[in-house]
């Protein structure tokens, strides 16, 4: 299986797109049409649309643009709270949905969605930060709505996510989001000991081609999700692919 480079697109008002730092949007980087064209022309393997405040619905302008422009896989995350919301996203043109809030609030509802759509169409995005516990820093889920820690350790969240049958897990480090300072090395170490057999993605902090290489060298990591690096640096999905291929990471043949 080839490793994936997945640009994420954060939707703001209408079809404007933003980048964030620490889960707070800070800069507009163009329109959705521009972003889609850019990432596809740069040979992204997959796209992830994030719309935390307003859910994309069947008749939205954003969905019309996606249907018109996209011939690669595209996933969606944002404000999905029911089976009908989830079905609307899939029938509207997305391959997969990623759930976060619903997983925090009602894991059994995630199970119900998996039962209808199949595990391959449902992923979980686990947003986390490190918390000082005694002498060590431990990763705990972080609720981006209230901007507070939850009491759920990341290992516990992974066990719960796999028990409800999701088909992919995205680990999103909120502190590293938008920093370009590198992906979570500590998490990469921890993943080696994690007993989980669904594809794992990692997000937060990618700033250079080498950062992608570090993460994708870990055999448990299937892909890297990133946004700011593709707007603020010269890295593109194409340069990442070439860099990683030259270092013997199996990347997609175009």
């Amino acid at each position, binding site marked *: 299986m080839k490793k994936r480079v997945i640009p994420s697109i954060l939707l703001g008002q209408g079809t404007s797109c933003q980048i964030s730092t620490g889960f707070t949007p800070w800069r507009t980087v163009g329109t959705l049409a521009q972003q889609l064209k850019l990432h596809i022309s740069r040979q992204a393997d997959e796209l992830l649309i994030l719309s935390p405040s307003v859910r994309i619905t069947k008749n939205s302008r954003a969905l019309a643009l996606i*249907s018109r422009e996209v*011939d690669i896989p595209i996933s969606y995350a944002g404000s999905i709270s029911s089976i009908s919301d989830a079905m609307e996203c*899939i*029938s509207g*043109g997305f*391959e997969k949905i990623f759930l976060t809030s619903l997983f925090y609030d009602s894991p059994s509802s995630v199970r119900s969605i998996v039962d*209808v759509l*199949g595990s391959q169409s449902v992923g979980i995005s686990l947003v986390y930060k490190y918390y000082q516990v005694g002498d060590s820093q431990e990763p705990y889920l972080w609720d981006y709505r209230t901007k507070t820690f939850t009491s759920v350790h990341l290992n516990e969240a992974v066990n719960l996510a796999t028990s409800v049958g999701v088909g992919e897990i995205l680990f999103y480090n909120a502190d590293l989001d938008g920093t370009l300072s590198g992906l979570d090395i500590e998490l990469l170490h921890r993943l080696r000991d994690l007993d989980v057999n*669904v594809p794992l993605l990692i997000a937060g902090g990618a700033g250079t081609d080498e950062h992608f290489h570090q993460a994708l060298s870990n055999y448990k990591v299937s892909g890297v999700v990133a946004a700011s690096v593709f707007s603020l640096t010269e890295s593109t999905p194409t340069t990442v692919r070439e860099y990683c291929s030259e270092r013997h990471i199996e990347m997609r043949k*175009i």
Partner: protein
Amino acid sequence: MKQIKIVDFPFCNANAIHRYASTRNILITPLTSDDIPKDYEILVIPGVGKFHQAIDYLQQQNLHSVIHEYLNNNISIGICLGMQILLLGSDESPDSKGLGILKGFCRKIPSSPLFRIPHVGWNSLVPNIEHQNIFTDHNIEFSQSDYYFVHSYYCSLDDSSLVSSSFEHPESNLLTASLQYENRVFGFQFHPEKSGKAGYALLDHVVFQT
């Protein structure tokens, strides 16, 4: 002028097929139980979801017999679950009978530390070089490309000569990635409609050159 008849599953992402058709100026309309196959029509059975949902929908819409008519006479393309329902059944939904056009069952992909399930992402094809099929001509650009997969079950066919390409599994060796029956019925476990230029080239080949 080619036209596409699509099985319009409500839980399925058919937009990508509509996009392909629009880029090729092909008229695409939903299949209905009253349709009569015309020789310029191509049947497309897409599919996301579970095996029994697809079969239940065909029953609710009374599409079984018309689908058989198309599969027996027209170029037909089954994609992902749309390919799996061509078989007799699936471990995913043991109580649902498949269309049974081809002998075989859908099995769960064996779990392995080196192969994550669902099988999600881009993977290479291994053409079945023992039998002539659309992937054995290496001059064709699409035979060398990677394609996008997203599934947990695979087609285990009784007649292995129907397998046109496979993907590698670390323990089970090769599992079906695509099938070809009588140069008329084409099944793709991966999503050509979501596999960029190579996927579109593959669809073009089936739609315009078979």
